[in-house]
């Protein structure tokens, strides 16, 4: 128990730099995505087991709250993916990349790339949301 407290305190209060934040973000996004993926597999499976429930689930997904959540989910998948690639590449092919300056740089670039991928997607999804849920843009 005290270890859990220490760990959470460390996560939050330790003033680590890029690596610390990328570790936390990778972990949080990974967990977020597993949670979503589990639910998603189940709801998709409803198309066979119980299509009525499937439609209900889709209904819920279309709500504004879930819409916004979905936009964040997309960020999670982008960030986790870019960062995961970074980790896999360095670990498998370029251990010298775990060097202080280049590591700091690669973490920052990871975030930038994830944002660059995410922003247009977010824009598009937000637009869809506004069109369908609020009838904007003449939808």
């Amino acid at each position, binding site marked *: 128990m005290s270890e859990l407290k220490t760990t959470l*305190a*460390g996560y939050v209060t330790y003033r680590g730099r890029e690596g610390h934040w*990328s570790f936390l973000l990778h972990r949080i996004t990974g967990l977020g995505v597993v949670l979503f993926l589990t639910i998603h597999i189940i709801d998709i499976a409803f198309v066979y087991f119980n299509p009525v429930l499937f439609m209900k689930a889709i209904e819920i997904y279309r709500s504004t709250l879930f819409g916004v959540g979905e936009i964040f989910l997309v960020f999670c998948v982008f960030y986790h993916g870019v960062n995961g690639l970074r980790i896999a590449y360095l*670990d498998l092919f370029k*251990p010298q990349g775990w060097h202080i300056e280049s590591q700091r740089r690669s973490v920052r670039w990871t975030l930038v790339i994830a944002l660059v991928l995410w922003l247009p997607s977010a824009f598009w999804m937000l637009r869809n949301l506004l069109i369908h849920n609020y009838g904007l843009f003449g939808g």
Partner: protein
Amino acid sequence: MEVRVRVFRFNPEIDRRPRYDVFTVEAEPMDRVLDLLEYIRGDIDGTLSFRRSCGHGICGSDAMRINGRNMLACKALVKNFETNEITVEPLLGLRVLKDLIVDMEPFFEHYRSVLPYLINDEPLPEDGRERLQSPAERERFDDTTKCILCAACTTSCPSFWADGHYVGPAAIVNAHRFIFDSRDRAAAQRLEILNQQMGVWRCRTAFNCTEACPREIKVTQAIAEVKRAIQTGRLD
């Protein structure tokens, strides 16, 4: 200039829970945090306990958390902090024995667990002189010979906070030092040890260790090299 030093205090003989004492001291920009602590202990509050010896970053006694980050108090200069308030706390993840002193035993136990010594039972050179090693072979493990066992790395590692059984970066660094020494013959044994549950795979490349290392050892890189050696069996 005036510096406010917030110091973590805990004396298990009296206190039930820790507290923070604030000392206001006059300091020069070039002063080390260790100088401030020495001054506090000598002239303000003698009951403050902390470890130190060499005073210039070589002995590894005084690793602690200063403004939230692990460093050696003797290598932390007042001018390097943006604020005039300096918070000093013990290392995270090891039991506090008193004030800034933590129990180092688990740390050394992990260190000992990786066979941190040269193992080579082959006969010595017949002329009784040195074993040969090329400068390149020597260079291969130079970085990890620098470790002073200060524990700044291990106690900055999220995996170690979560589970003190993780051998931690310092032990891996010291294993690396021998695994890649061309004179050593026990790399397989060490890799076997580090391939276990509590070995290298616990490292999630959080990089705090490398940032914290006062000897500027490329800790995460060393860990990555050990992981690779386990995966590929190559020691070059």
